[in-house]
């Protein structure tokens, strides 16, 4: 095989591999992803990644479980959550959290260890000028 | 007030430092130094390649004919660089 043809062949193989990788990428990501949503948007029978704020005064412990209510960042609609697993250190009422799970009979049952609390804002919009 | 004063002072210092080259003259020598430095760097790199090739041969990665061919090519390239270095005044 002359070198030019060999090189073209290699190029085709490389492009084919790239196309294969790209399709694997797209397929697996769309099928394995969880949809991000707000508490006011969750519906039963679907896995979600819920983002919202912990409602003040709603945090309680029942044995190993953590219970709290989560509300929309800018709203009042809230959903009760039952969570088991590691609770991140910054977890507090009023803080923004992300938790994955499913809505079952009115309560959002969370996946184990899926609770993420956003670090309190270091870079805020408020500026203090002299 | 402190800000304005500091601004003017610092700007003046910087202006002084960056204006100096315009007051000095003649750097044909600097040109030559630059060319010499570039050729020297290329020479060092070529020497390293020659040594690397020999190490590869001694470690058994290159066959003797392959090494001879590569060595010949690299050495002629190095000689060319040395010639150009010699041509500099």
């Amino acid at each position: 095989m002359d070198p030019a043809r060999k090189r073209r062949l290699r190029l085709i193989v490389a492009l084919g591999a790239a196309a294969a990788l790209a399709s694997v990428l797209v397929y697996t990501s769309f099928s394995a992803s969880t949809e991000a949503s707000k508490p006011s948007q969750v519906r039963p029978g679907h896995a979600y990644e819920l983002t919202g704020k912990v409602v003040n005064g709603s945090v309680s412990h029942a044995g190993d479980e953590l219970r709290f209510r989560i509300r929309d960042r800018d709203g009042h609609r809230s959903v009760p959550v039952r969570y088991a697993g590691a609770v991140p250190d910054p977890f507090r009422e009023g803080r923004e959290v992300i938790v994955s799970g499913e809505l079952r009979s009115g309560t959002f049952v969370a996946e184990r260890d899926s609770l993420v609390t956003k670090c309190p804002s270091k870079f805020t919009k408020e500026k203090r000028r002299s | 007030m402190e800000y304005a004063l500091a601004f003017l002072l610092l700007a003046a210092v910087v202006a002084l430092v960056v204006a100096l080259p315009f007051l000095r003259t003649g750097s044909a020598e600097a040109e030559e130094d630059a060319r010499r430095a570039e050729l020297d760097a290329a020479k060092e790199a070529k020497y390293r390649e020659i040594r690397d090739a020999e190490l590869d041969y001694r470690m058994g990665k290159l066959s003797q004919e392959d090494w001879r061919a590569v060595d010949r090519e690299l050495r002629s390239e190095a000689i060319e660089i040395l010639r150009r270095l010699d041509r500099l005044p």
Partner: protein
Amino acid sequence: MAGIGSACLAVGLFTALYAAGVSIYGARRGRRAWVTSGRRAIYCLAGLMVAGTAILQSAFLRSDFSYALVAEGSSTDTPGFYKVTAMWATQDGSLLLWALLLSLFSAAVLFLTRRSLREIAPYATAVLGVVAAFFLVLMVGWENPFDTLAAPPMEGNGLNPLLRHPAMMIHPPVLYTGYVGFSIPFAFAVGALVTRRTGADWIRATRRFALVAWTFLGTGIMLGALWSYTELGWGGYWAWDPVENASLMPWLAGTAFLHSIMVQEKRGMLRIWNVSLVCGTFVLALIGTFLVRSGILDSIHAFGASTIGTQFLVFIGVVVAFSVALILARLPDLRSRAKLDSLLSREAFFLLNNLVLVGLCLVIMWGTFFPLISEALTGDKASVGPPWFDRLTVPLAIVLVLLSGIGPVLAWRRVTLRGLRRVLVAPLALTLLALLALLVLTDASQSPPSLVMFCLVTFVLAAVGQEFWRGASARRTVTGEPWPRALVRLAGRNRRRYGGYLVHAGIAVLFLGVAASSAFHDQRDVRLSPGQSFRTGHYTVTYRKPTARLGGDSAGTGAPISLGAVLDVKKGDQRFTLHPARNYYPTQDPSKGVVSRYFEGEANSEVDVRWGLKRDFWLAVRPDLASLDRPIREADRRFPGASNDVQAVVIAALTERYRSHPPPAAFRAIVSPLVLWIWIGGAIAVLGALIAVWPAPEARLRRVRSLYAARLGRELSRA
């Protein structure tokens, strides 16, 4: 003094723009004086940034709360070390850090290349000046670190306790050194493209900077992982969090760049790859800097929308557009005449290496930005989690390790099959032995990817060992030296090569640790009362007693209250004790009661880890404060507005109550094998990089001597 600091920034901005302008003018008109002036302007910029940083640091050390930044991030009771490092815990301070590092690096590279690269250096100066100007504009216009408060408070907010960890405080400067370092090869690549001098000159001048940047970036990533493992309560070191990914991507691209430039230096090939890789690495470094402060992705680190997100996005867009346009315009100058001779050559493997690393980078990029992609395509913001990342990156990582083993044993241009057989026989034999040993002696077969990784790690270590051995014996046939000296001389005379081999070995060991600890760790979450015990991974853990400390936590972070536990761990003859705890920091929130203030602020886990070469025992505790709830509220009611002394007495009583009547506490115990080797492997890689970057004194001496000889010749002929 704050006014002087602000003036440093403003003058710095003009200086940077001046440097860019005169350098371009001088280069286009061939007027050397202008170019020199531009270079000196960069020196001035470095001086200004140093002065500004010194002013800010002195404000922190003096606890001068008239500075908004000091009031925000420090307090009089913050330990000294954290006062110094608090500067880059804030947005403004970290922008100043970027500008400082950029100006210092720029000054260094321009000083080192002041006599060479005459055509390229001016354009590089211009690029560096523009980038510096961007960061300065951000500070002058939006986030000035020298902002003062009209009414300085008596006490500052103090540093977020989660950040009070040595690794977390060195993490930003180390990471930024990595990001900034890559701007140097980028600037020179742009210069090379503009002037059409697309040979290896720009690479030779900036190679060391790229290597140093890569090393710092890698170290920064590892520090972050170490912090996550030892400081956070979940016991892992990598979560595929967007911010973690944002630092990994430039590192991967930088790795590809460092390898790919070797091909251009040796054979003049892969030039398009190299300029693309360096531009990509720099853009990814900017994205990494930007992601932490943008709020566009949900992450544990994302702090919501910030004031400079849009500006960053615009700047990144400009850099991308400029780079792409420039590369496309110079495509004819970049095509190499040499072609790939054979697939069994170092060049081919380096090309394959590029493809795998870029592939890894793209996978991670896709996963990280998936929420935005899916929102754009489907309208729903969906995200992918660690399982997806693991599934896609593990195969690519396996290929990468395989390549890192084969690459070093190949030669340039072409390797004959016979030659290949000779170099691969021993490593393959050892790998096979390892495979058999693993199958028979351990249960590694339970996780096939880990088994494959273990075998490949053996292969890499064997191949590297063989290289050292063969190289030393090749020396000995010529010089007859003893083995130790032959090895040292070998590495000393071929620093790039053998330093690089050591890096490969280090990374292989790192992957060994990652594979073992991810696939074979044992985790248990339990609730225990004192006296109870549980079993995990052949260990028996007994909760001996609770602990309560007031004012003086073991980690030195200045926490007033520290509640924890003492646990005895036993396995066969081995016995040790662990002291995990949880620190509580008071909140300044005025709506909280006087006493509950101390329990409702930040809290963080002081994890106790027993390190071991074979496995780590990691333990975290989460005391249950529910039993103290009523006494705390009672105290709030009875002592509103109490003085500090009264508060201390009340707190002491409460913590004593916790100690004497402890409720069950939640524990998490993780036994992970070979975690220590992750950090050891990283350290080996850094050592290898140091060896590779170390300049060879003989070469420099020769160069300097020849310059002096030339000067002597000129002056003599003039006399």
